């Protein structure tokens, strides 16, 4: 199935794009999508323990199951204010 990955800030710079189409096996979780992405862009690996994720514009756990067409966002540590 196909999901859309959105990346922000430093993660977006490492991957070189704000949106990436990613083919993942049915039943994949957000964590699986991250592993697949980090394999493609090794610079992302350092963020594994500090990212958050959101599925379809709501915060989600890395164990969240993805469905075809989902939008999954990976967020580096935040610094608003």
């Amino acid at each position, binding site marked *: 199935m196909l999901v859309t990955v959105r990346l922000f800030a*430093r993660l977006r710079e490492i991957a070189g794009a704000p949106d990436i189409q990613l083919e993942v096996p049915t039943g994949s979780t957000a964590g699986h999508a991250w592993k697949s992405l980090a394999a493609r862009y090794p610079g992302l690996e350092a963020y594994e323990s*500090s990212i958050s994720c959101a599925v379809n514009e*709501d*915060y989600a756990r890395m164990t969240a199951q993805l469905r075809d067409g989902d939008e999954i966002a990976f967020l580096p540590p*935040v*610094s*608003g*204010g």
Partner: protein
Amino acid sequence: MPEPRGILTTVPRRFRVGSDPLDVAQLAASVTGPECGAVVTFVGAVRDHNSGRRVRYLEYEAFVPLAVKSFEQIAAEAAGRWPSVALAIHHRTGRLEVGEPSVAIAAASPHRADAFAVSRYAIERIKQISPIWKHEHFEGGEVWIEGATADPADEGARQAALARACS
């Protein structure tokens, strides 16, 4: 029953993220009412130094729909603890020069203690859970500022924000 004409259309949005300049007076007006004896506004601005670096300017990036939802969550949390307080939050995105406001918070309540507490709680929570990032351009380079791993369900972080708000 007749529609309350002209009322809904003139109420400004209380939670906003975007490149428009902040209007603190309008933000304060959006939360206050005849029952409010206190309106506290907080404005965060771009500082000219950070961690020993001379800051030239900041670029703010946000995941806008989720950032707006995070503001709504912060307001819901605040309402649970301080039911009489009305809260509004605007945050800017894009390039901001030294001295420019980046975030404005307005909290209104019948009495000042609650309004002060909620404005402090809101800025602490924004820094914990709102998907917004500073790209710092300083003399000699640039760096993404990375603070807290955003986890709205982290009760420890929420308690820390509450403790600061009530200190």
